[in-house]
């Protein structure tokens, strides 16, 4: 019975695709994974996607600014994030995929602070959470 239930659950969740507003594969290149360590310059809290601008120092010592695509600010705000949640100067590590145009744009599949904390986690106050609901 347990196995059967799990299958049902898996099917249901799979059938509800968590698509973003555009086709991912049209914008980013899965064959170009990257890992960037740098400093936040600014965070564009804009729709349909937020964008983190970060300065990354290359092996040659040259600093290049990258733009990292993130989630919709409306949802982030409801989860408790504000425009101050990612202040300029924050040191972060981004793992993601470069844009297909091979520019210094990428999608961040995960973002962590230099000390290992996951970006955004711990800030969430879910509306449906009876323990954190005001």
């Amino acid at each position, binding site marked *: 019975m347990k196995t059967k*239930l799990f299958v*049902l*659950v*898996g*099917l*249901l*969740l*799979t*059938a*509800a695709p*968590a698509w*973003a*507003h*555009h*086709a*991912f594969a*049209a*914008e*980013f*290149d*899965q064959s170009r994974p990257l890992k960037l360590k740098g400093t936040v310059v600014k965070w*564009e809290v*804009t*729709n*349909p*996607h937020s*964008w983190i601008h970060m300065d990354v120092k290359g092996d040659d010592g040259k600093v290049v600014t990258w733009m990292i695509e*993130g*989630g*919709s600010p*409306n*949802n*982030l*705000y*409801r*989860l408790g994030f504000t425009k101050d949640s990612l202040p300029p100067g924050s040191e972060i590590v981004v793992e993601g*995929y470069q*844009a*297909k*145009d091979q*520019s210094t*744009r990428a*999608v*961040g*599949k*995960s973002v962590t602070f230099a000390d*290992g904390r*996951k*970006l*955004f*986690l711990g800030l*969430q106050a*879910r*509306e*449906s*959470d*009876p*323990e*954190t*609901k005001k």
Partner: protein
Amino acid sequence: MNSRYFGSMATLAVVVVLMLLAPALAAGQDLSAAAKMTTTHKAWTPPRTADGQPDLQGVWTNNTVTPLERPKELAGKEFYTDAELEALAKHERERLSRIEDEGQPPANHSGVEGAPADDVHYDFSQFGLDRGQSKLAWNRRTSIIVGPEGTIPTLTAEARTRLAELRAKAKGHEFDGPENLTLGARCLARPNVVPLLPTAYNSNLQIVQGTGYVAIETEEIHDVRIIPTDGRPHIPKSVRQWYGDSVGHWEANTLVIDTTNFTDLSPFRGAQNLHMIERLTRADEDTILYQFTVEDPGMWTKPWSGELPITKIDGQLYEYACHEANYPLANTLRGARVAEEQAAKKAAK
């Protein structure tokens, strides 16, 4: 781990009770069924607006994990049992807690259990795009589409030919220019407005009523439907709009909306002569029962209907100014140009 993401069990129970009654409420039935269902909530009387209409006003969500069409594996099974629904909620809680507690995104990074490993995208939990992070309108349906089949009916031969021609024409030109991209990617129109279908995130709407009008704003992607309820007819057939022309009327506690006059550019599944009927019935303080029927004899071999609960949420609707930073559109087109250059270089070698 606890039930922190899913509201109290009492709330869940109310939704379960509501949806237990859903089989008697198949879309298309008259209001008496809905009214009968509503009266089962003995302690609750539907509120009225100042001019005496049922009050549907507020900020709501239709966020759900229920798919539009029933997965093949659940063919013939229209509802989950209580135990299965509980298992579903438990599974979702565990999935999200696993991401948080271990600090590890799921292997496919999409946040969707069972999604293909190459479905590379954000860690949805981290970026606030996981459905389970927002309030969900839980219900026992295995698909939004009602009935034993739970799927969109077969296309007519005419529609199959027309859509195949369109696909053939578009093939190889998907990224030629902005006009080739979907209305959604262009921030113009999306298929979650008429009918009111859930969208992956920001699946919220606000209803405001004035004398003779009901306005429904969907957060994504910034559209407000202004629906007259004063008995006026539809606009002339020659005037066609992306979301059609909606007129409404009240049947006891139910707002019935009739929508026609869609363009052939409608974002809804490529249909050309859509006719939609929607029914919104306040079921209790926190719930609207939403039912819709879609028909287009040139498109589908028969009409089809769906229903889902819409649940009240706190707060306000936020602006979703999709155009303000739609960098993905330009990025996508630039990406296509780079791919073309590379293909040309490769061919020249």
